[in-house]
């Protein structure tokens, strides 16, 4: 437990500094813990494993989009748990499951188990992206899917470099909202 925290926190700090490999590792390792956490919670209240996967991805997106709110002086586990639980409560509210069904839990629960099963969520990111405004779509596709640099993406989309950054960020936020709407229905 302690080593997980220290290791993940180190990766997180590197990720905050812009290290893509650490970012990838920390998100991947958190997602397997989140999967175990959400499956445990949702199966107990009679929801499916694919819904758990939707939630895993919502939480991973939230962790990515809100990573600037992690205070490096604090442990990582409570921060991840707060986001994971917030998304769980939000999911339960919007899918109208009785609120009393979500048991109180401890921050360490979110790091307690790994689940590496290779599940898929119920939505398709490419399809959701079609619903984004043109600039956001182009910027995300260029930077996040094709891995172009900001300058290359700017040329491709006819935007300024800061325009690309803004559109990627707003686009991911909008995607997170679309995903949440998708899992409601």
């Amino acid at each position, binding site marked *: 437990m302690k080593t997980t925290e220290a290791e993940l926190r180190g990766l997180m700090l590197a*990720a*905050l*500094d*812009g290290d*893509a*490999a650490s*970012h*990838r590792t920390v*998100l*991947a390792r958190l*997602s397997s813990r989140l*999967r175990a956490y959400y499956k445990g919670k949702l199966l107990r209240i009679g929801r499916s494993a694919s819904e758990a*996967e939707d939630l*895993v*991805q919502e939480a*991973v*997106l*939230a962790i*990515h989009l*809100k*990573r*600037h*709110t*992690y*205070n*490096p002086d604090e442990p990582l586990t*409570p*921060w991840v*748990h*707060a*986001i994971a*639980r*917030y998304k769980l409560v*939000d999911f339960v509210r919007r899918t109208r499951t009785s609120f009393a069904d979500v048991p109180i839990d401890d*921050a360490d629960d979110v790091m307690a188990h790994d689940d590496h099963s*290779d*599940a*898929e*969520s119920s*939505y*398709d*990111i490419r399809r959701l992206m079609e619903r984004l405004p043109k600039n956001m779509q182009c910027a995300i596709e260029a*930077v*996040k*899917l094709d*891995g*172009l*640099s*900001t300058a290359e993406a700017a040329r491709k989309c006819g935007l300024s470099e800061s325009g690309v*950054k803004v559109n990627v960020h707003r686009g*991911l936020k909008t995607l997170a909202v679309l995903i949440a709407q998708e899992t409601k229905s």
Partner: protein
Amino acid sequence: MKTEDLVTVLSTRIEPVNHRMVGWTMGIALATSALVALGLMLVGLGIRADLTTGRALAFLLLKLAFTVGVVAISSIYLMRLARPGGERRTSSIRIMMPFAAIVLLAAISLGLAPSSHWDEMVLGDQWLECLLSIPIIAIVPFAIIVAAMRKAAPTNLERAGAFAGLIAGGVSAMAYALHCTDDSLPFIALWYGGTIAICTWVGARFGPQRLRW
């Protein structure tokens, strides 16, 4: 979509982020909301004209001490509430301290005064103006603070909303104090304390809807 693919998408070409942004954003929002409240008071009401007398000045300082105390303490908690899990480290006890102090002082001053003066001390001349002005001036500061909170990630929306309302009410009362000529402790306790409490309650009601992310 596979979660693995999502992780790949998110980790491609990432930018470094500044963890101090949350503090900066909240700080700027607090300063802006105080300035806006002050501006609204100056334009709509004006500073009280009798500040040359010692009594008026003393009461102004007392009102400012109360309202600044409320804003200062609640700002600390608002900064915490802006981050995931921050609600674990907020205690509502400490925020009650300025309110408890002013209520205590009000009770003492009522106790020392003959009961025939009580009506006058509690209602003052302008209780209705105070009751309306503080919540109205608080609207724009509340919107500014909520907008700043939305850039962060509160995970207890009701409490975050309540503290946003509390601070908005606090800065508004701070500005209103410069205009208000009702100089009695029971007046401050009831009408300042009460309107700030109303702002807090309204903030808590709006939180879950306005702060959701």
